[in-house]
């Protein structure tokens, strides 16, 4: 068990799904991004995904690419991500990090896990790292009791679904559609299918990410998933101007969504 699973289970006990919010650190600048993460927590996110910006984010759509590029132009460092983790923990939500592999490798798999724990973080989501690709990461994370959160997709084979769910701790990150991060009009059946496949493979907790942008979608997904992950819609609401009130309104909409399902 971990702080992350405790929180997801507490949400389940309340009869609702958890709201997981993503923001890249450093967008539009480091100070504003930290304030924005506090807004996420205050307005109803149970878990906050902190994204250290990376120069080559292959699984991100235009909005998050733009935010990452702007953050890097502003001089954001990976160290700032750990500051953000501490900020989220102090604000009362469970912090996790969503990081591309090279950022972790350059710090060192073990040191990355240790720095995360020292900052109060619970786990790491790895969009371009599968469990079979980096046993070193899984080993380092286990040694520090850091949750390893891996992704599954509609294209994931039954064999890989089992492998991935077995190696995941905290939750399994299910993407209902093929594609990069961004808002989608409809998620529907595909989301339900990938969640049930993950559960059939033994996943105890499954959260849905990629494509969720409205309270109505959150409500729909909260009917069958343990958590709803929202990134692009929050980044867009924050915007280059760092509009915390617009962000607060968006988070509130999604927080009501996850609470209106059951």
């Amino acid at each position, binding site marked *: 068990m971990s702080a992350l699973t405790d929180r997801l289970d507490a949400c389940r006990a309340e009869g609702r799904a958890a709201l997981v919010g993503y923001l890249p650190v450093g967008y539009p600048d480091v100070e504003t991004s930290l304030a924005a993460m506090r807004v996420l927590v205050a307005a109803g996110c149970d878990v906050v995904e902190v994204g250290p910006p990376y*120069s080559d984010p292959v699984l991100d759509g235009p909005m998050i690419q733009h935010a990452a590029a702007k953050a890097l132009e502003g001089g954001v*460092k990976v160290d700032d991500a750990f500051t953000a983790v501490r900020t989220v923990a102090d604000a009362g939500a469970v912090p996790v990090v969503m990081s591309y592999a090279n950022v972790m490798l*350059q710090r060192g798999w073990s040191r990355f896990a240790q720095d995360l724990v020292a900052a109060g973080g619970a786990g790491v989501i790895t969009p371009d790292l599968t469990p079979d690709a980096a046993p070193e990461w899984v080993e380092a994370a286990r040694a520090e009791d850091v949750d390893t959160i891996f992704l599954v997709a509609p294209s994931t084979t039954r064999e890989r679904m089992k492998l991935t769910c077995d190696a995941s701790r905290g939750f399994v990150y299910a993407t209902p559609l093929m594609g990069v991060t961004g808002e989608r009009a409809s998620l529907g059946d595909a989301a339900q299918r990938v969640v049930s496949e993950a559960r059939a493979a033994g996943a105890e907790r499954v959260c849905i990410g990629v494509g969720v942008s409205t309270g109505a979608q959150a409500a729909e997904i909260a009917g069958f998933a343990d958590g709803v992950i929202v990134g692009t819609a929050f980044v867009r609401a924050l915007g280059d101007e760092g509009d915390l009130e617009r962000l607060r309104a968006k988070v509130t909409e999604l927080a009501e969504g996850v609470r209106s399902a059951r």
Partner: protein
Amino acid sequence: MTDSLQSAPGPYFGEFGGRFVPEALMAALDELTDAYDKARIDPAFTGELERLARDYTGRPSIVTEVPRFAAHAGGARVFLKREDLNHTGSHKINNVLGQALLTKRLGKTRVIAETGAGQHGVATATAAALMDLECVIYMGEEDTERQALNVARMRLLGAEVIPVATGTRTLRDAINEAFRDWVTNVETTNYVFGTAAGPHPFPAMVRDFQRVISVEAREQMLALGGLPDAVLACVGGGSNAIGSFDAFLDDAGVRLIGCEAAGDGVDTGRHAATLTGGRPGILHGSMSYILQDEDGQTQPSHSISAGLDYPGVGPEHTWLSSIGRAEYWPVTDAEAMEAFRLLTRTEGILPAIESAHALAGALRLGNELGPGATLLVTLSGRGDKDVEQAARWFDMLPEGDA
């Protein structure tokens, strides 16, 4: 088992290579690996590829001795492996025909590709036209400006060319965008990767499709009197170089030299000499050397040659470098352009600026080794696409046009 270094199967070359990609692509990469493993031993596939190489590409490509050029290389004998004479003008067609045939075997109807200089894009668009495949090419916006002629060629061939305006607007961003397309459309689409980098099976598969360069050249050199003292080729991602090296890997007396783009000079920071100035990291699906800062952010590369302007390098090259089997030399823009001018003026052969980096390496090595040395240089492409850029470099454009 033998101790042969040839045709290493991957996914790992020493500690380099592997497959670091989103889970969404794993099934497609497994499917591609499986299809390729079957195809490479299927006479129907290898026979069709050989037929295309002969009747479409124009293989075997010839070897040309260039004595007037060699007079500037310390009196060494210099031979060129003429991949510039292939259909579409570079070595890229060797790989593309193989991957396009595989696409048909997979039952997919659409191909995507990245391109830097445009040569791989042109080759892919060509194969797509030949084999009736829908074709989308991602190209950095800066490269579409540097290589406008190749953009037009691709469009004439029926491909859609999408300029990529994110990041550094070069090859690296084109690859990112192609991966994003593939994640979204993997069911119908095959990614025809242009260089011997990326996730497994690309480094080994692209090497196998380019291996024909060294298989032919080795026989041709033996017929001309013996193995060369060194084989030189330019290295961006490294597909022509790995294809030029593979059949020579077990010939201990043959030095293998990859010429990287040193841009303004490695010490200026404006370069693309990954093995000289980089360190280990993960980029575009594999572990290799990359140009990066202390946080792991990829650094912008710089080269006059769009085809070498890439901050990574294929993992097999990193391995060959780490075990000392191959050497990697930095060659600046200025050195490459001097070699470009020299070959054109002494032999009447206009090389691609990419290939001119290997020619510059030959000039340097020839002067080191002196008379009696025999050097084989892969001329990976022809310079037609580079005429405007070279004319600007040498200040040869009519006044008012520059």
